[in-house]
């Protein structure tokens, strides 16, 4: 038996240092933060023992911002300054919010969603950042240290604009995003690891504002998403809304003089509607009683049968994407071994019945549908920062919507089809249609429809400087790359001349880098010198980390390089080491970049070697079997 090692008092051996990473479920109705402690994923609670943080942000008269229960408690009194369900507005244009007449906010007349509050005009990214900031503080308080990073979950059916908006919100909250993770995939990780599940599972995730259905195959720690579908604007909120409309009808029928509701009454009735919905989960009827600001008394009773009738079309709306997901996976209902329910809205009995009916089996409910996503995200975060060298946990996710480009006549040419496994890259060639054409405009879109107008516009960019040629002679190669976060970048290159254009797709309804930088600087209120000191410290930390990583790689795999190559890398290391002690962060960044570039070939060779080892390992396994 090997001797056990004990480190010197006050020193913990570096390789076992636990890095603090969290998983965050940024939900429409509630948000959570979870982490892995002593090998167990746990949801972190606030000082009052609450795990759920209501996703409610209130801008107070004194300039403070309240998030969570306190904000929620005041929403009926202060509806225009208390924002609920902000997730529904992420990455959306105002025209996308079809029910905005029934939402008690002062929307600014703008293409992107912006809300006028007493703290000024706020966009959904800033509002979401307040929620993330509250969760970050909760985690740092509970864990007693700064976070290395976070995995943030998004609905699988979120498009590029919505994902980018979520990432921007995290940046604004000062969080380092390790990965954006799809909510159903996170749930599958938590469920699968908890139950040692193997086989094909459906994850039915009906949240406050979004619906996702994902079909996954679980094999030995590999979570492979076969297909995903959903509706980014369907959730528990819509059930509340049906009740709200029903109550309005009742009021209209019973009173001859109906005055249009003010903002406080709208919020009050929506809150009552939500409470009635929740009550009906365990009861046959719900009484809705309240007094409107006009003095009018509302007292109506809604029974389960009526509620089911009112909302049956919403339940049915989840089945079309479910069928689509199965068809895309090439599977039948009988191939599904289990159905995992996620999201608070799946507590409604008629939703459960519809799912059981469709899949011909009782859904699995042994994990709390409110917490399962955050727990899965925490497990993934823990693996990503390398706390657990769990070589078996591997998530293979897909892109939910097809990505393409506009061609002549307003038609969409799909470049990357939906349900492609990430990361994915695809290229396609296009040509000019006029003689002597020297520039081309590209319009990047996301969606399944043939007409560009029916899909979501992601970005537009131009390629200029194409040498004049006859129509159809230029060969412009467009490359789409979607990374593991599901985010798209696009580049264009004229093949004969080599003229290039590259865009990270910044969605039409998002923020640009300058806007984020501005919001960051105003939120920190930091003096310029502080910022410089901070930039220098960050550059030094990054440089030292890179040198350490490369020296370790040289020790492990130095044999992959010849002496000249080794010498070149060592020279770049020496140059960086010299500039670390100089005072300029720009110089350190430049030398870091140079060192990085000088190791690209080395990194590629190490990758090849690592793939060969993995393949050899698998083949050994199969010989042993």
């Amino acid at each position: 038996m090997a001797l056990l090692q004990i480190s010197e008092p006050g020193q913990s051996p570096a390789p076992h240092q636990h890095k603090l990473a969290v998983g965050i479920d940024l939900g429409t109705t509630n948000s959570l933060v979870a982490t892995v402690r002593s090998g167990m994923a746990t949801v972190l609670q606030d000082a009052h023992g609450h795990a759920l943080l209501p996703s409610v942000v209130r801008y107070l008269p004194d300039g403070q911002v309240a998030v969570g229960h306190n904000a929620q408690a005041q929403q009926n009194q202060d509806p225009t300054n208390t924002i609920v369900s902000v997730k529904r507005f992420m990455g959306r244009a105002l025209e996308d919010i079809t029910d905005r007449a029934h939402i008690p906010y002062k929307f600014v007349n703008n293409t992107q969603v912006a809300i006028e509050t007493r703290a000024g005009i706020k966009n959904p990214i800033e509002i979401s950042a307040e929620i993330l900031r509250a969760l970050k503080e909760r985690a740092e308080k509970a864990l007693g240290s700064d976070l290395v990073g976070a995995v943030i979950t998004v609905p699988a059916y979120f498009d590029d604009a919505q994902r980018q908006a979520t990432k921007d919100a995290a940046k604004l909250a000062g969080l380092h995003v390790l990965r954006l993770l799809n909510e159903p995939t996170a749930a599958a990780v938590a469920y699968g690891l908890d139950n040692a599940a193997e086989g094909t599972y459906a994850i039915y995730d009906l949240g406050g504002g979004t619906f996702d259905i994902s079909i996954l195959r679980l094999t030995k720690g590999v979570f492979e998403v076969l297909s995903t579908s959903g509706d980014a604007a369907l959730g528990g909120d819509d059930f509340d809304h049906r009740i709200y409309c029903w109550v309005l009808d009742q009021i209209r029928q019973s009173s001859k003089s109906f005055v249009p509701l003010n903002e406080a009454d709208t919020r009050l009735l929506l809150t009552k509607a939500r409470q009635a919905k929740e009550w009906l989960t365990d009861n046959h009827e719900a009484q809705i009683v309240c007094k409107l600001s006009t003095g009018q008394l509302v007292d109506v009773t809604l029974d389960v049968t009526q509620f089911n009738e009112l909302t049956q079309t919403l339940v049915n709306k989840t089945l079309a994407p479910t069928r689509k997901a199965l068809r895309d996976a090439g599977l039948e209902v009988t191939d599904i071994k289990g159905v995992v329910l996620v999201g608070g809205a799946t507590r409604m009995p008629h939703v459960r019945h519809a799912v059981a009916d469709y899949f011909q089996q009782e859904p699995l409910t042994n994990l709390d549908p409110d917490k399962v996503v955050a727990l899965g995200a925490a497990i993934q975060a823990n693996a990503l920062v390398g706390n657990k060298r769990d070589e078996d946990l591997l998530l293979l996710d897909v892109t939910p919507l097809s990505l393409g480009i506009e061609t002549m006549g307003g038609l969409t040419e799909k470049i990357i089809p939906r349900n492609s496994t990430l990361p994915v890259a695809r290229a396609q060639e296009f040509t000019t249609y006029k003689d002597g054409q020297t520039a081309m405009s590209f319009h990047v879109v996301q969606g399944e429809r043939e007409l560009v107008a029916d899909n979501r516009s992601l970005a537009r960019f131009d390629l200029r400087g194409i040498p004049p040629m006859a129509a159809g002679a230029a060969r412009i190669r467009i490359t789409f790359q979607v990374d593991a976060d599901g985010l798209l970048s696009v580049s264009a290159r004229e093949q004969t001349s080599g003229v290039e254009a590259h865009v990270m797709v910044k969605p039409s309804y998002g923020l640009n880098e300058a806007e984020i930088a501005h919001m960051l600087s105003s939120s920190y209120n930091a003096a310029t010198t502080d910022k410089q000191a901070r930039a220098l410290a960050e550059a030094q930390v990054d440089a030292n980390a890179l040198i350490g990583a490369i020296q370790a790689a040289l020790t492990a795999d130095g044999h992959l390089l010849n002496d000249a190559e080794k010498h070149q890398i060592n020279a770049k290391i020496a140059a960086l080491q010299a500039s670390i002690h100089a005072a300029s962060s720009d110089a350190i960044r430049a030398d870091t970049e140079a060192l990085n570039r000088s190791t690209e070939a080395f990194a590629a060779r190490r990758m090849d070697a690592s793939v060969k080892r993995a393949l050899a390992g698998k083949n050994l396994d199969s010989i042993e079997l």
Partner: protein
Amino acid sequence: MQNFFQLLQLPQQFNIDLTKLETNYRAIQSASHPDRYVTASHAEKLAAIQTATTANEGYKTLKNPALRAAYLLSLQGITAIAETNTAMPADFLMQQMEWREAIETAENAKDISALDNLLGNIRAESKNLQHLLSEQFGQHQLSDATDSTRKLIFMEKVQADIRDVIEELEG
């Protein structure tokens, strides 16, 4: 640069061991997936995303019989679907027209089960064609194999169109 067969350590032929394809694909992903390199240097992240992307593309190509056949031909310098070469045997054109008519009839009648049946029939036809293809590739009859590959690709397209119509009808 390795081709997909070399990367996934499979013999360069039409008939492949799908289990081995999957095992090897997962081995490559477990070594190269970007999730393994979240805290790595920029150069290593780049190498990871390139390898993982290629593995995904290779897996997808070799798993699907029509794509696999077209890829095998492309390694021989043959383009299965070229704009200059879209000729099809008359009987296959007839068959295609019949399928298109059947789709239209079922679409107008909103008959999803008829579409499902049609999908099943084409899938069975496609299986037969794959057997033929494996013989043609086996005997190195590349011209015949090219014709079969094109048929297979068209059948894939018809099946995709049927699925789109079903989706539309289910709205």
